[in-house]
């Protein structure tokens, strides 16, 4: 099991409370963990008892929280956006909440995209699951997925371009 990557968080200002073990990052916050990075206006990180971190990202000025995850070996880029995002370092689970949209593209071509009120993306198992939720307009999850063959063709195409 490869060592867990560090989480690096850049921001304009930081308020850290040593008693509550809570850090509040404000202003152009960029959170990077391995090949996952997240942009937001404000991120609150609470350290849990077992030492894992629970981050809550929200936006004030910018329209959405933006999340991006690259997996170079599979030529795959996952982009997500929502009004709020939660990340738990122990389970490596990222939850996009509020008009959440997640698109997966291989070699630049969008393979599948999901919309819903809440999307849970599990980084360890690389799976994501969307939940409709009461407030989204059509209460349902909209998902577009390409057939498997097309995905393999896109990967093969990318391999040739790479050589």
């Amino acid at each position: 099991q490869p060592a867990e990557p560090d989480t690096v968080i850049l921001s304009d200002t930081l308020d850290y409370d040593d008693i509550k073990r809570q850090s509040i990052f404000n202003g152009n916050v960029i959170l990077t963990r391995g090949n996952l990075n997240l942009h937001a206006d404000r991120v609150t990180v609470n350290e849990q008892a077992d030492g894992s971190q629970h981050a809550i990202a929200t936006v004030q000025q910018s329209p959405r929280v933006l999340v991006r995850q690259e997996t170079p070996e599979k030529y795959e880029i996952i982009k997500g956006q929502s009004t709020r995002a939660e990340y738990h370092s122990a389970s490596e689970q990222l939850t996009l909440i509020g008009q959440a949209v997640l698109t997966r593209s291989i070699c630049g071509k969008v393979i599948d995209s999901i919309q819903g009120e809440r999307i849970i993306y599990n980084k360890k198992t690389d799976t994501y699951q969307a939940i409709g939720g009461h407030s989204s307009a059509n209460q349902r999850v909209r998902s577009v997925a390409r057939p498997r063959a097309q995905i393999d063709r896109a990967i093969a195409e990318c391999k040739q371009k790479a050589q």
Partner: protein
Amino acid sequence: MRERLPALTALLLLAALVAGTWWAAHYTHSTVELDPPRRYTHEPDSWANDFVMLRTDEQGIAVNRLEGRFMQHYPDDDSYHVDAATALVKQKENPLTTATADLAIMDEAGQRIQMIGNAYVHRQPDTKGDRFSIRSDQLTIYVDEDKITTDRPAVIINGPNILQGIGVEYDNTSRQLQVHRNAQVTLTPAQPPPAP
């Protein structure tokens, strides 16, 4: 009139003698000040080697200890300049903080200690045993408020995490830390406990 001449000259000589001594005494008094006022120039008026100063609060409990290799006291701003200084602050039940620097300037009647040059503050580990230290090239300690501030870039080590930024303010009573600009935090995951 002739026989009174010697008496008259003696009297004159005596008067000259009295005037002369009175003038000499007056002259010496005016040049040498009996009780000169304090000299308010920025020159050290006292210095010490292996200097230790202990400051206590009203109840007589020590709150601050400043020690160093060489101390100079300046009368104009009543400041102590201490080389290779170590400053310890222990306020009520706040954790003890130990600060070291190349030069410490204590002024404002011991309220403020500026640590200049490789300033490093180490706070006693708390119940969770996490190390907490601040390193910068200049740190200012406010003893009675138990606060540490700097407007320079600083690196804070807090347990496994490293915080960096420009302009830091740490309040040891509420244990709140603010980074004013360009905060950068590296959270290293807590190593899972070694397998039994």
